């Protein structure tokens, strides 16, 4: 490998600092303005959720923040403009989970997770590779199929293997694009608990979510996106108001307090006429 042993392991940022800062970020894709002047910060020790309807620009924003797309405006990571980072160095500061994890050759799940350690090759942190990979696989419950080719796994299993790879990268900033989309109830909760525990250990987590209940339960702040803008950003209990969500999603929504816990429930308002009725048998 070309990476030399001289690379120092970056110091962990202090909890509560603005690790990722974006101001006035705009993106045009195929002649369409997908993001308009978005400003956002992700702090260490916090989980920030990006929510909003399809096509609101959540994934585009995440890609722009990850420096995957040409964008205008300022994006800094750890106080340094994204464009100034060397690719290899940036990989030791932020990890990105793609929305659709893919793999072109039949690597085993364990190999895929171990790829997350690549940025640390030739640093001191490489000594912990095996332990970190084992821990990430344990956390995402993928140890059981460690030696199976990635291509033979189910959608949910692939998603968890990809998440384990991202966790194994051990960066102070995690950017997850719909990590819960392909997962069952148990694993959705598991992923969100993992996000919380990473935040608790001082990382900044940015996560795109569709499930507003999960966002309300697990995230410190949510940014509600609509038509390429941030419509509202703040603590879930301040932001998740029935009127705002109903307007943004163009779907009537109720926001209720949980009967027993200090938590919000976000439920779409449904017409009674459409719910399944008992069939009248004529007797």
């Amino acid at each position, binding site marked *: 490998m070309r990476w030399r042993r001289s690379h120092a392991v970056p110091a962990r940022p202090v909890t509560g600092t603005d690790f990722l800062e974006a101001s006035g970020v705009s993106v045009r894709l195929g002649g369409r303005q997908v993001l308009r002047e978005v400003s956002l910060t992700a702090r260490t020790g916090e989980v920030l959720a990006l929510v909003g309807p399809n096509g609101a620009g959540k994934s585009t924003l995440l890609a722009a923040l990850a420096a995957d797309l040409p964008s205008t405006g300022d994006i800094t990571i750890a106080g340094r403009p994204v464009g100034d980072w060397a690719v290899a160095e940036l990989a030791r500061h932020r990890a*990105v989970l793609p929305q659709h994890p893919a793999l072109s*050759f039949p690597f085993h799940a364990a*190999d895929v997770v171990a790829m997350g350690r*690549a940025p640390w090759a030739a640093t001191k942190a490489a000594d912990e590779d095996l332990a970190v990979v*084992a821990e990430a696989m344990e956390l995402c419950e993928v140890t059981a199929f460690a030696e199976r080719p990635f291509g033979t796994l189910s959608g949910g299993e692939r998603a968890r293997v990809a998440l384990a790879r991202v966790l194994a990268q051990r960066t102070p900033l995690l950017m997850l694009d719909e990590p819960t989309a392909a997962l069952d109830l148990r694993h959705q909760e598991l992923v969100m608990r993992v996000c919380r525990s990473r935040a608790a250990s001082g990382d900044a987590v940015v996560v795109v979510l569709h499930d507003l209940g999960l966002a309300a339960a697990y995230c410190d702040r949510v940014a509600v996106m609509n038509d390429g803008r941030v419509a509202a950003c703040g603590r879930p209990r301040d932001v998740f108001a029935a009127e705002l969500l109903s307007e943004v999603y163009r779907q009537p929504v109720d926001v209720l307090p949980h009967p027993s816990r200090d938590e919000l429930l976000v439920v779409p308002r449904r017409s009674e006429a459409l719910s399944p009725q008992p069939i009248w048998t004529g007797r």
Partner: protein
Amino acid sequence: MAVLTRPRPSAKDGSPAPARVRRGRAALLTLGMAAGLVVVAAVSAVLGAYEIPFGDLFASVLHRVGLGGRELDRVAESVLWDIRFPRVVLAVLVGASLGCAGALMQGVFGNPLADPGVIGVSSGAAVGAVGAISLGLTFFGNWTVAFCGFVSGLITVAAVYLLSRGGGRVEVVTLILTGIAVNAFAGAAIGLLMYSADNGALTGITFWQLGSLASATWPKVLAVLPCALIGLLVAPRYARRLDLLALGERPARHLGVNVERLRVVLILVVALLTAAAVAVSGVIGFVGLVVPHLLRMAAGPGHRFLIPGSALGGALVLVSADLVARTAAAPAELPLGVLTALLGSPFFFWLLRATRRKQGGWA
């Protein structure tokens, strides 16, 4: 420490090929292929119209190295050292170059079906070589054909790369489609050159186009050696980054790989390897396609084994194929390129179906 051992599945869910088994297979394959290469090379040196006993082969080799042995009579020495050995060495170099180029190409495109021929290097190199033959160019003496093939191959790759670039990056589909267009153009150019060539040149072109090592000489070996060596030595340095590229361009970049630069370097290496091979031996297909494919099935897709393994495997395959081409229909000689395509393509069809069935698709 228990934490530091690699996570293993419990014994009850038996998996087909654990990593340990794969690594073991890789080591075994390397040993087997190396041993096979030595044996086939030795057999290739003794078999032919002029039979040389094995004992004489060793005696002569030992004598030349200066470890005893003895000198053979003049004819035997000449057959061995001026005809057979350059041919074996050339087969090793060309085979290793093609195998390695195939593995790199498949890694760069993330597609197990990619091939050096796909992006037009082979046909590009062919244009230069055919041009040199048909126009009777001799400015570099013996090396003229090789040199022209190499130069036109490199120009082709550069053109394909520039044409398929858009918005600061190269999309694989565009690259492959551009390769197809370039292949068509090169085919037309070769046709034109052949149409305007005289009879003597035409025979030379046809012979060369079928792919052959029959005209192997030490100067030809020397002509390929630098290109092949540079390519073969540079390629393994990119193995880990190619592994990461299997995740896709963006994830690879997120893991610290400078994808654009990786691609430029590897395409140059592929051009170097393929153009060098094609220029001296003509178009020899399927080595670069089948060898990496087989090795991937046997020992997993990790490029740290696949790249050097494909070079070794390619050398073994080509030395064996050349032995068959030389001896199967003696005293006549089968064209090597025809032989590899004849054996390679049905085999490849079978591989395709088998692998697809086993993996349930390519992704």
